[in-house]
C-alpha cells in the first residue's frame, strides 16, 4: 500500500454542474496557504455515480474520509480542520447512506470511476490497465475470442447477445478490411452509465476496443458518441492521444506488426442512431435510417465491410476479463447472465445513481439496498420502469424478479441499457406510457409505416385518454395496435416501442379504467382530469400551495384553509407538487 496522501475531487458532468471546479481551485489556494501543497496530491476523478453535489475524498493518516455536498466556501474549513488539524470536519462528512450505497455493490466496470484521474494513463496502468493488452498481443488472436466466449459476457447495449459469439462471427467473416465500432450513443433517456464510464475511465473502453481489434483482425475503430456528452468526447480524445503516444494504439502496437487506430464520431441527436445499422449509416454521413438484417454488421457493416459493434459497458468489461480470466468473471451472475450490470437508479428513491451489482439480484434488493428505500416514506412504490422507451413498467408485486436477461424479458419489460426508474403513487402509469410513446414518435425515423403511423395513432389515443376523452374501445385498439407494431416494424425501435403501453395496461388495468370510465386520474397527474379544488379534510392549512402558485390563484391566510380561484388557475400543478398531504384533487 502506498502511503501517498491524496485528495480526490469528483469532476464529471454532475460534479462540475454542482460547482466542482471552484472547489478544486479553492483546494489549490488553501493547500498552498497552509503550506501543504507538496504533501497532498490533488486528483480530479470522474463521477462515482452517486449524486451528492461535489464529493471529495481525503486519503491520509486518517484513512479514507469522504466529504459530500462540498461547496467552495467549505474548502477552507476542511483544510484547516482536517489537513492542518488532523481531525474530521464533521459538517460535511458523508453519512451512513453514502457508505451503504457502495457497500452492496460489486464494481468491475465502475471500479476506476471516481478513483483515478481519467486523463492520466499512468493512473489507469497503476490500476492494472493495459496489462491485458500487453499479455494478449503476443498470443494467437483466437485465444482472446475464446476467453470472451468462455466468460459468458453478453452485450450490455440492450440485446444481450453473447459477445464472444459476435466476435467469432466477425473474425470468421471474409474480408481484408474490418472495423470495430463502440456504440456510445446512450439513447435511453434515464440511463447514464456509459457517460460515467467514458468520463471516469475512458482508457478501459479504448483498451477493450484494441483487444477486440486484435481478436477479429480489424485495424480501425470508431467511437460513436452522443453530441450531448462533450466531456466524454474530450476525455476520449485525451485517452486516445495518450495511448497512441505510449504505443498502445496506432502503427506497430507495442513494437509488434499489429496496428489499430481509433476515431471519434460525434452523433448529431437522433435516438434511432443507437440502433446498429442506423449508427453505421450515420458514420457513413447519411441519414440514420436502419436497414433490415441480415446481412448483420458482422458480415457487412461499415462501408460494406465486416464490422463488430459493441456497447461501451461491454467493451469496458473486456480488459478485466482478459486480465483476470474467464472463470473469475463467470463466478459473478447467474447461469445464463454472467458478470455484473450497471443500473441507473433514478426517480423516487433516496439514493439515485449508478449501481453495479451481480446479475440475478432482485429489483427489490436494488431499491432497498443501494437505493436506500423510497424517497418519501409516506408514498409507497407503485412501479419500476426498466429499459427505457423499449422496456416496461413492473408493479410492486414483481419486485422479486431477479435482474437477468431472461427473467426480465418474461415480464414483458427488457433489461435494455439498465435504466431503472422508481415511481411512487404520485406517478400516473397512463401518463408514463404516453410519455414514452411521445418520445418514440419523435424519434422514429419514419421509414416503415407501422412505426411511423401506428405509434402516432397510439399517441393520439393516449392523449385522449389522459385528457378525459378516452373510451373503453380505445383500450382494445391500443393492445391490438401495439401487437401489430411489434410484429411488423423494421427495426428494434418499432419492435419494442409499444412495450411501455402494453406492460402498463397489463399491470395497471384499474388505472386505465379510472381514466376512461370514471374520467379520473388517481395520481392527479393528468391535468385535464384534476378539478383543482382543495380537499378541506386533508388540508392542514400550511400555505405551501399558495406560495408555490405562480398565478396567485390560491387564496390562503395563516391558519385558514386554502382555496383555489378557478378563474385564475392555469392548471400548472405547482400546488399539487408543493402539497405534501395530497389535499388537492
Amino acid at each position, binding site marked *: 500500500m502506498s502511503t501517498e496522501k491524496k485528495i480526490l475531487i469528483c469532476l464529471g458532468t454532475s460534479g462540475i454542474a454542482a460547482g466542482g471546479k471552484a472547489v478544486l481551485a479553492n483546494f489549490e489556494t488553501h493547500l498552498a496557504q497552509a503550506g501543504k501543497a507538496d504533501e497532498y496530491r490533488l486528483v480530479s476523478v470522474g463521477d462515482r455515480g452517486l449524486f451528492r453535489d461535489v464529493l471529495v475524498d481525503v486519503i491520509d493518516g486518517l484513512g479514507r474520509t469522504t466529504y459530500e455536498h462540498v461547496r467552495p466556501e467549505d474548502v477552507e474549513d476542511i483544510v484547516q480542520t482536517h489537513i492542518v488539524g488532523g481531525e474530521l470536519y464533521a459538517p460535511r462528512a458523508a453519512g451512513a447512506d453514502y457508505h451503504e450505497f457502495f457497500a452492496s455493490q460489486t464494481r468491475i466496470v465502475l471500479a476506476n470511476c471516481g478513483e483515478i484521474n481519467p486523463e492520466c494513463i499512468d493512473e489507469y496502468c497503476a490500476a492494472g490497465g493495459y496489462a491485458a493488452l500487453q499479455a494478449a498481443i503476443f498470443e494467437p488472436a483466437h485465444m482472446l475470442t475464446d476467453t470472451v466466449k468462455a466468460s459468458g459476457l453478453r452485450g450490455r447495449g440492450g440485446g444481450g447477445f453473447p459477445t464472444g459469439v459476435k466476435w467469432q462471427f466477425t473474425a470468421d467473416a471474409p474480408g481484408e478490411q474490418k472495423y470495430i465500432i463502440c456504440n456510445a450513443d446512450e439513447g435511453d433517456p434515464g440511463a447514464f452509465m456509459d457517460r460515467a464510464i467514458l468520463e471516469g475511465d475512458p482508457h478501459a473502453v479504448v483498451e477493450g476496443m484494441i483487444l477486440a481489434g486484435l481478436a477479429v483482425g480489424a485495424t480501425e475503430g470508431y467511437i460513436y458518441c452522443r453530441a*450531448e456528452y462533450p466531456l466524454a468526447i474530450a476525455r476520449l480524445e485525451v485517452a486516445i492521444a495518450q495511448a497512441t503516444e505510449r504505443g498502445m494504439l496506432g502503427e506497430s502496437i507495442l513494437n509488434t506488426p499489429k496496428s489499430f487506430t481509433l476515431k471519434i464520431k460525434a452523433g448529431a*441527436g437522433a435516438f434511432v442512431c443507437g440502433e446498429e445499422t442506423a449508427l453505421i449509416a450515420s458514420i*457513413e*454521413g447519411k441519414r*440514420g435510417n436502419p436497414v433490415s438484417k441480415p446481412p448483420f454488421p458482422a458480415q457487412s457493416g461499415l462501408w460494406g465491410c465486416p464490422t463488430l459493434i459493441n456497447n461501451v459497458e461491454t467493451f469496458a468489461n473486456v480488459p478485466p476479463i482478459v486480465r483476470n480470466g474467464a472463470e473469475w468473471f463467470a463466478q459473478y451472475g447467474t447461469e445464463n447472465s454472467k458478470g455484473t450490470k450497471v443500473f441507473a437508479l433514478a*426517480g423516487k428513491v433516496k439514493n439515485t445513481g449508478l449501481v453495479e451489482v451481480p446479475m440475478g439480484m432482485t429489483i427489490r434488493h436494488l431499491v432497498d439496498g443501494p437505493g436506500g428505500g423510497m424517497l418519501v416514506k409516506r408514498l409507497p412504490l407503485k412501479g419500476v420502469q426498466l429499459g427505457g422507451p423499449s422496456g416496461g413498467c413492473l408493479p410492486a408485486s414483481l419486485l422479486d424478479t431477479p435482474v437477468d436477461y431472461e427473467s426480465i424479458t418474461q415480464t414483458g419489460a427488457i433489461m435494455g441499457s439498465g*435504466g431503472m426508474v422508481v415511481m411512487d403513487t404520485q406517478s400516473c402509469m397512463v401518463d408514463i406510457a404516453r410519455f414514452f410513446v411521445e418520445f418514440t414518435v419523435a424519434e422514429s425515423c419514419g421509414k416503415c409505416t407501422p412505426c411511423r403511423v401506428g405509434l402516432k395513432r397510439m399517441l393520439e389515443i393516449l392523449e385522449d385518454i389522459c385528457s378525459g376523452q378516452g373510451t373503453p374501445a380505445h383500450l382494445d385498439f391500443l393492445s391490438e395496435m401495439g401487437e401489430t407494431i411489434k410484429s411488423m416494424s423494421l427495426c428494434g425501435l418499432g419492435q419494442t416501442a409499444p412495450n411501455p403501453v402494453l406492460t402498463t395496461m397489463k399491470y395497471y388495468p384499474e388505472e386505465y379504467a379510472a381514466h376512461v370510465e370514471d374520467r379520473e386520474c388517481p395520481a392527479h397527474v393528468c391535468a385535464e382530469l384534476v378539478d383543482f379544488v382543495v380537499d378541506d379534510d386533508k388540508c392542514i392549512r400550511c400555505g405551501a400551495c399558495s406560495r*408555490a402558485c405562480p398565478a396567485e390563484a390560491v387564496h390562503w391566510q395563516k391558519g385558514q384553509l386554502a382555496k383555489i380561484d378557478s378563474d385564475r388557475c392555469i392548471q400548472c*400543478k*405547482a400546488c399539487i407538487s408543493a402539497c405534501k398531504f395530497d389535499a388537492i384533487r
Partner: protein
Amino acid sequence: MSIDITKVESILAASGRGKGVLIPILQAVQNEFGYVPREAVDCVAETLDVFPVDIYGILTFYSQFYLEPRGRYTIRVCQGTACHVMGSKEVLDHFSRQLGIEDGGTTEDGVFSLERVACLGCCGMAPVVAVGEEFYGAVDMTKADELIATWRAKAEESE
C-alpha cells in the same frame, strides 16, 4: 441576412474529401454560425458535388442542426424519464409560459431559445435544466424564474 461565406470555404478547405465527411462539415458550419445558413448549404453542396436536397435530408433528420439563427442562450429543459417523474413537464410549461415561446422557439429579443432534450446525463439532479453550458439541478418554477432573470441580466450586461 448574408453570411461570411469565406468561413464556410475555409471549413471545406480544412476538411478531407473522403468517406463520411459531410456530417462533420455541417457540424463545423453550425459551430461557426450557430445554425446552418442556406448560403452555406449551397456552398457545401457545390463543393462536394451533392444535391442541396440531400443535405437538407440530413439537416432535418438530426435534431442537433438548426436552419434558423438561435437565441443568445439556449435553455434546455430535460424531458428524460427521471426528470419527467420528478416533474420536468411542469417546468418546461412554465418556461414556455414565462418566455412566451413554444419548445423550439426563440424570444423576440433574441436572448433565449427554448428546447426540450432527452436526458442530459445527470438524472440524479432531476429535474435538470441547462442554460448554455451551465447545468442546474432540482429546478422548480421558482428557480426557473430566477434563471430567466439571471441570464437576462447577463445578456443586458454584455450588450
